[in-house]
Structure formats: structure tokens, C-alpha cells
């Protein structure tokens, strides 16, 4: 187990270096210098001042050196200062937004798990029934649904026409005056739509995979044996089959982390939620290049943490992995 863990951690570290190298090179080799954002708006800037600025950001050095200098600072969580007018340190700007995005993603993962797994299991055990057909249609629709469009529609329905839910932000204006219970309720009302919208694709995908994984497992000999020795069907499915059927799903959940983090740009933008996704969108619009680089790195680290947690779950569920 220890060996397995250390091997995975090394792999993850190498991947992280790969990701930052790749992002760094692409951003630096792309046309247009990052300092253009600062200089374009200022017609009075002299070539000397421009050179001074480039030197300040280290852009006059070879790209490999630039990367190493950047990496050396990043280890100490120093991503430089944002190019936007507030000039705050990038890490500070990211730090305050990570919890929002991570908790929304965790909530939607939880929702995916709670809906997709039971739905997948029951449509596999009732293959070709009406229920199975209805869920299959639902899965195809959920898969094809553009998340941002669904967000707009739900906003229109629940926010504009029915006035049941607020259409943007995380908290109401009077949040601070509410009681503890009221605060939770207020947050829940604001989060209901974003969490559902970000989970929908995952619910559709994972329930589909759960179904086929379960179908595969219940054809195995050991399930026939379990049935033959007279175990009740619920025990056969939930104790014997589920464990094996869950294995590919765990991998899939790990793989869906980058999609969730990337997707946060869309739903945070629609629902005006102050998270990493919205910050990323703003940094892209302003070409705020230290901020873009910082967010890319943090996004990659979060993804790798997600993958590692998935690996750990996998090792817990499957003893064969631990011995490898």
C-alpha cells in the first residue's frame, strides 16, 4: 500500500510539472506579450519604459529560465501580482475563491453519486423494462443538454416566473441579519440551481456507466453462484455485485474532476457566483496573465488531488490494487 501510494505521488508530481510547463510555454509563445495589456492602454509609454516593464516581469530572459524562476516562486505560493487595477497578489485573489468552487463541486459530486448510482443499478436490474427505457431517454437528454442553457431556462422558470429561487449570487442582501438556520436556508436556495446544473451531465453519464458496469457484473459466474445458493436478490446485488460494479465508476468520478472544475466557469458566470470559474473568466477577459497562470496551476492541483482521492477509494474498495 505504501509503495503504491508513493509511486502514485511521484507520478502526480511529474504530471503537475508537465501541466505547468505546457501552460507556461503556450502562454509565453502565444502572440502578444502579457505586458501589452499594461502598455496598450497608455499611449505615452516609451520604449525604455516598456523594456523596463518586460525586465521586471523577467520577459527578457530565455523561456526555460523564466519557467524556473516562476516555479521557484510558486513553490512559496507566490504567483506574482495581478495585472488588474487592484494589483493584489494573485494567491490572495485565488485563495478567497477556492472554497466556493470546491464546495459547489463537492456538493454536485455528492448529488451525482446519490442519484446516478441507484438509478444505474435499478435500470440494470430491470433491463428493458419501461423504467429502464425512460431513464435511457433521460440519460440521452441529460447528456445532450447544454448546461448553460439549462441554467438559463431554470433561472427563467424558478427565478423570473415563479419567484421561488434567487437568480444570482451566493447570499441575499440581508444575509448578515438572518439567524443561523436562515443563513443555511438562504445559501441552499442560492446553491440549488448551480449545483443541479453542474451535476446534470455527471448524473446522466455516471448512471449510464453504472448501468453497463452492473450489467456486466451480474452476468458473472460468482453472481450465479450467489443466487444458486439461495441468497436474497437484494443481498446478491448490493453485497456481491455492487462492489465490483463500482470500481470503474470510481475511476470515472476521478476523471470527471477536471470537467467539473472547468465547467465552473460556465455556471459561475451564469449565476454570478464569486468562485474560481468567474475569476478565471474575468482574468481571461482582461488578459491578466499572472492570474491566468495561477488559476491554471491551482486548477491542475485540485484535479490531481481529486484523482489521488479516487485512487485511494479504489484501493480501499479493491484489495488487489493494494498488493500491486
Amino acid at each position, binding site marked *: 500500500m505504501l509503495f503504491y501510494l508513493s509511486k502514485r505521488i511521484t*507520478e502526480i508530481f*511529474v*504530471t503537475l510539472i*508537465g*501541466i505547468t510547463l*505546457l*501552460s507556461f510555454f*503556450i*502562454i509565453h509563445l*502565444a*502572440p*502578444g506579450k502579457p505586458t501589452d495589456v499594461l502598455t496598450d492602454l497608455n499611449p505615452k509609454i516609451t520604449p525604455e519604459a516598456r523594456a523596463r516593464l518586460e525586465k521586471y516581469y523577467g520577459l527578457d530572459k530565455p523561456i526555460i529560465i523564466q519557467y524556473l524562476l516562476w516555479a521557484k516562486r510558486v513553490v512559496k505560493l507566490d504567483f506574482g501580482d495581478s495585472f488588474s487595477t487592484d494589483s493584489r497578489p494573485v494567491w490572495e485573489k485565488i485563495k478567497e475563491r477556492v472554497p466556493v468552487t470546491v464546495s459547489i463541486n463537492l456538493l454536485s459530486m455528492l448529488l451525482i453519486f446519490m442519484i446516478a448510482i441507484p438509478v444505474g443499478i435499478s435500470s440494470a436490474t430491470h433491463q428493458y423494462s419501461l423504467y429502464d427505457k425512460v431513464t435511457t431517454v433521460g440519460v*440521452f*437528454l441529460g*447528456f*445532450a*443538454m*447544454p*448546461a*448553460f*442553457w439549462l441554467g*438559463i*431556462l431554470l*433561472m*427563467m422558470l424558478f427565478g*423570473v416566473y415563479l419567484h421561488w429561487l434567487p*437568480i444570482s449570487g451566493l447570499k441575499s442582501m440581508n444575509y448578515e441579519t438572518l439567524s443561523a438556520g436562515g443563513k443555511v436556508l438562504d445559501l441552499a436556495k442560492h446553491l440549488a440551481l448551480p449545483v443541479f446544473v453542474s451535476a446534470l451531465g455527471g448524473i446522466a453519464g455516471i448512471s449510464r456507466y453504472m448501468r453497463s458496469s452492473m450489467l456486466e457484473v451480474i452476468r458473472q459466474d460468482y453472481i450465479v453462484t450467489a443466487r444458486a445458493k439461495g441468497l436474497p436478490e437484494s443481498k446478491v446485488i448490493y453485497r456481491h455485485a455492487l462492489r465490483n460494479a463500482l470500481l470503474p465508476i470510481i475511476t470515472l468520478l476521478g*476523471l470527471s474532476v*477536471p*470537467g467539473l*472544475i*472547468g*465547467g465552473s*466557469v*460556465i455556471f459561475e*458566470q*451564469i449565476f454570478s457566483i464569486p468562485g474560481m470559474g468567474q475569476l*478565471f*473568466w474575468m*482574468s*481571461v*477577459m482582461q*488578459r491578466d496573465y499572472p492570474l*491566468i497562470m495561477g*488559476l*491554471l496551476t491551482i*486548477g*491542475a492541483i485540485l*484535479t*490531481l488531488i481529486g*484523482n489521488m482521492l479516487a485512487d485511494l477509494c479504489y484501493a480501499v474498495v479493491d484489495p488487489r490494487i493494494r498488493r500491486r
Partner: protein
Amino acid sequence: MSGIFYERFGHNKLAMTGSVLVALLFLAALLAPVISPYEPDHIDRYHVLEPPGRLHPLGTDDIGRDVLSRMLYGARVSLSVGFVAVGIATFIGMIMGAVAGYYGGIADRLIMRFVDVMLSIPSFFFILAVIAFVGPSIWNIMIIIGVTSWMGVARLVRAEFLTLKSRDYILAARAIGASDMRIILRHMLPNSLAPVIISAVLGIASAVLLESSLSFLGLGVQPPMPSWGNILTAGKANIEIAWWLSVFPGVAILITVLSYNLLGEGLRDALDPRLWERR
């Protein structure tokens, strides 16, 4: 083989629905100049944000352009972005997968590590970051979606190559002195096409979805060029007064993605012999 294919594909109702819908979409996109009631950029100043009616079947947008006409021209954008982006992704994926699977060793390890790296990046972040620097345009979108979505194809082709490599006919080809190039291009690639075609069709669906999300965020196809995503941007801005601006383009995206997914699943059923006995 092709007989079985047509029989299985033809009997699959969902797959047939998918292919008919895809064909209709292409027809609508091709005939856009003929069938759209107005020019996509024509501004009708007296009918701004008008609900669907006799003059404008799907209403008008916030500066008085006909929504139906813009959607028909938008179909051209979505369909071509899907097609070109997936073409690029499939091309890169096939090369990467073929090299990794055929040569193995260091090349394989490097390429597969690179695939892992690409899969661990939140690709939507990555795409946005690149757009921030190269600027949004329909061509850039096609290229960026293409170069960020080849990893699945590479894995598929590599896996196929690993099993094909030790087949007798490949050994025979090598024994009579065929070059690596010839073995890869003439013998191995054609035999690993089935999963690639399936994943390409499903890939078009996700590329269409991705393009519309980017355009919706204002980082994809730029106005005045119409795209389903950027009509929805106006839809969101006028959400309280103009439902038609939000509903119709979304339905178009939904139907397009759905038809490609159905087509892809149908092809999978028809092309993958492992799924045959089960039904």
C-alpha cells in the same frame, strides 16, 4: 461485413433517427441562404425584441434581427466547428496512438504520459487561457478544440495497435519486408478504424457543445457572425422579457448534440461485434 452493418444499423430506430436528424441539420445549414426569411444581419428597427409572430417566426433579437435566419446561419457555424475540430483531434490522436502502439518503449511511455498530462488539465480552463492570448475567432476555436480533445482517440488507436501487432498477417507483412509506414498505414490503421469512427461522431457532439458554451461566454464565435451560443448571450441578457431568444437556440443545440450521440451509439452497436450477442 457491410451487410451485417446495414442490417444492424438499419434496424436500430434510435440510430436511424440520429442520422436522419443529422442529415436534416446539414441540409438546413447548406440551404440557409435559400430558406431563411431575412439576411442574418438585416436589422428591423421597428421590431426589436418582438415575440414569435407572422413576420418573424421565431421572433427578433435585441437589435431587431430575425432569430430564425440567425439560427439557420448559426447551424453552419456549429456544424463546421464540430466537423473540423474533430477532424483535427482525430488526425493528431491517430498519429500519437499509432506511434505509441506500434513502436512501444520510450515513445509509448512519453506519449502516454503526455496524454495523462493533457487529461489532468481542466481543459475548459486551458482552452479559455489560450483564447485569451490568440483571440477568439471561429478558426481559433476549431483548432483549440481539436488540439485539446485528441487524447481519447490516441488511447483507442494505441489499444487497437497493441492487439493487432502480434496478428499473423502483420507478422507476414513484416516478413515480406513491408516498411513500418506501409504496415501502419495499409494494414493496421484501416483495421482499427471502427472505434475511431464511433468516438469521432460522439466527439462532434461534444465539440458542438463546447463551441456553443464558448460563444455564450463571449469567447467563441464573435458577433456579428451568428452562432447558437452568442444568440443565447443576448437571451440571458434579456431573460426577463424575451423567452424566445433563450429557448430556440438552446433547442437547436440540444437536438444537434442528441442526434450525433444517437448516431454514435447506433454505430457502436453496429460496428462492435462484442455487443452483438447481447441484444
